[in-house]
């Protein structure tokens, strides 16, 4: 097991296309780090550079205290789980899992013991004689994980391993992966485009966009304190609502929508937002902070009437889509709240959880 250090790493392709633009990242020993971002953000390229499957254009990657830029994948002591599992179709499950050990000339009885142990952990003992074709998606995923675990590598790399599974199995396998990491706390780098996967699995989440790291932090930190508009919009489902506002001083600091509606900024944030007085900004507010009204509202809550456009009952909650100042907005309300399209729904906006984005830099202030 080892720490991984990515220092000023750049990846360019022919025609001067930069997939990764000089990123720095320190991954501690035993840590579970998830790289998340939209398609083409450079997260998979970063993972493949750690694996040695892509050459590094500039910068250095360190694994366990050694620079590995010129070390071939087989000598990096890493294991990788691929999106489509990449199981060897002509080998049995046992042979798939034992392949790396055989190549490293482990004794036969040792190979059997290690494969059996890994199979037991993943509950695939009964599948060892089967070929990958005879396995379901979830079973293949387990075998791919078994192939990685059995070698006890320094680092696990996961490249969107749950993308090919159906929604139910994805949730189940997500838990399995977390359980395996608790049992075998190997340093793990996990790539996904699914922010829920990132939030649920990671010790730290790395949000990437356009080849750069937007923010690194614990899941809750990213959720509560996003540093950029991109992170604010990417983390959280449904996504954060953004409304153009102007910071005004009207018997206290307020944000004013284009239609003239003013909402008071909570007193503890006045110092923070004071310097932006008079500036046009973007107000960010999550759907869960725009809810139905209650008899007694806590301080910092603003009331607003919304004309309901679409209602999406989810069971444990209901999503209400409406327009604020011409901008489509989503609110998350209690499932017992009665609302129908076209009706007016009074909403409570919790300004204690507001975010204010500076338009010029896209940074959350």
């Amino acid at each position, binding site marked *: 097991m080892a720490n991984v250090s990515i220092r000023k790493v750049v990846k360019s392709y022919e025609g001067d296309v930069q997939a990764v633009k000089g990123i720095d990242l320190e991954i501690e020993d035993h840590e579970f780090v998830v790289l998340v971002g939209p398609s083409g953000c450079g997260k998979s390229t970063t993972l493949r550079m750690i*694996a*040695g*499957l892509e050459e590094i254009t500039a910068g250095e990657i360190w694994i366990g205290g050694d620079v590995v830029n010129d070390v*071939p*994948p*087989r000598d*990096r002591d*890493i*294991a*990788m789980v*691929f999106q*489509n599992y*990449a*199981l*060897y*179709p*002509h*080998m049995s499950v046992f042979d798939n899992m034992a*392949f*790396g050990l055989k*190549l*490293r000339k482990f004794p036969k009885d040792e190979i059997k013991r290690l494969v059996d142990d890994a199979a037991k952990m993943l509950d695939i003992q009964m599948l060892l004689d089967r*070929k*990958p*074709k005879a396995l379901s998606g979830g079973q293949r995923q387990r075998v791919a994980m078994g*192939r990685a675990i059995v*070698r006890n590598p320094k680092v696990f790399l996961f490249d969107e391993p749950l993308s090919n599974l159906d929604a139910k199995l994805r949730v189940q396998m997500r838990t399995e992966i977390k359980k395996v990491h608790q049992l075998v706390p190997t340093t793990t780098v996990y790539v996904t485009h699914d922010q829920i996967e990132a939030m649920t699995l990671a010790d730290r989440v790395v949000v990437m966009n356009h080849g750069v790291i937007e923010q690194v932090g614990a899941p809750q930190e990213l959720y509560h304190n996003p540093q950029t508009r991109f992170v604010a919009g990417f983390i959280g489902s449904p996504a954060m609502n953004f409304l153009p506002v102007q910071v005004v001083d009207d018997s206290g600091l307020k944000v004013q929508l284009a239609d003239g509606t003013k909402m008071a900024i909570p007193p503890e944030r006045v110092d923070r937002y004071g310097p932006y007085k008079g500036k046009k900004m973007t107000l960010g507010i999550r759907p869960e902070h725009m809810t139905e009204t209650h008899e007694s509202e806590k301080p910092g809550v603003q009331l607003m009437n919304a004309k309901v456009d679409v209602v999406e009952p989810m069971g444990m909650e209901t999503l209400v889509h409406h327009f604020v100042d011409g901008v489509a907005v989503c609110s998350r309300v209690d499932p017992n709240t009665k609302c129908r399209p076209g009706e007016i729904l009074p909403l409570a906006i919790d300004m204690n959880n507001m975010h204010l984005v500076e338009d010029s830099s896209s940074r959350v202030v």
Partner: protein
Amino acid sequence: MADGSTMVVGASATTPPAPRQGGTMKRLARRRSMAALALCAPLIALIICLKIYPTFYAIFLSMLDRKMNHFVGLDNFAYLLGRPSFHLVIFQSCLFAVTAVVMKAIIGFILAHLMHNIRGSSQRIWRGLLLVPWVIPLSLSTLTWWWLFDPSYSAFNWTLSWLGLPEVPFLGTVWNARISVIMVNTWFGAPFFMIMYLAALKSVPEQLYEAAAIDGASAWQRLIFITLPMMRNIILITVLYSLIVTFADFDIVRILTNGGPQDGTHLFATYAFAVGIQSGNIPRGASVSLFMFPVLATLAFFVLRDVLNRNKEVAT
């Protein structure tokens, strides 16, 4: 829709079925299996005329006497097995077919790998160039080879003498001639192997190689443990097909050596031609040409069974 009409999805569920029209023939024509059979009928007729009938006729012929008046059973085969000259034909045919197929397979495999590693549009150009031997009519290209091998005017011997080396009678001694015909067959057939193996190589998912590289496999181990097993079916089918075709080869030997020198390059096909057509013993010629049939048919049965089983096991 283009004609302006509107398609109603699910309309067929509510529309009453059309009244039954016509008689038995129309009902039969509406069945998919009958339509499929009707479409295949011309091909089936061709196969019957050009393959099945001649095969059975050849089997029938091989059991007649020279004048084709009396049924003699397997006498022709027994006679051939007792003849040393025919033993030589068996040896030469096996040597020719096995050596040529192995060489074609190896050269095709190497060429396919080279092609696979050429990136960009130049791969298409090289692929086209390397396919040239296979697309030129064999009898024409063999004539060129014959000219190249010529002892007095050949390009090969001219080059050798220019280099100060002794001239080589390429078609003049038994072993030289055997090697020459094998070489020409290899030259002609290797592009076919190349194109088949290239297609097989392209179908191996790149991620298997990446997974193997991470698992610790060297380039050689990736070839042995990933490439070869993944290409196994194509290799088997190509070798089987080529073996059958090479055993039946006629043009090269007929044009280059005509079976000589001292009958040292005769194959089943050229020997069958010499016995059946040139010497006028058609039944015995037929038995020569049928000699390898049971061996190759058995081989084909086992190879194809293995390929089918493996397909069921491995294909995802």
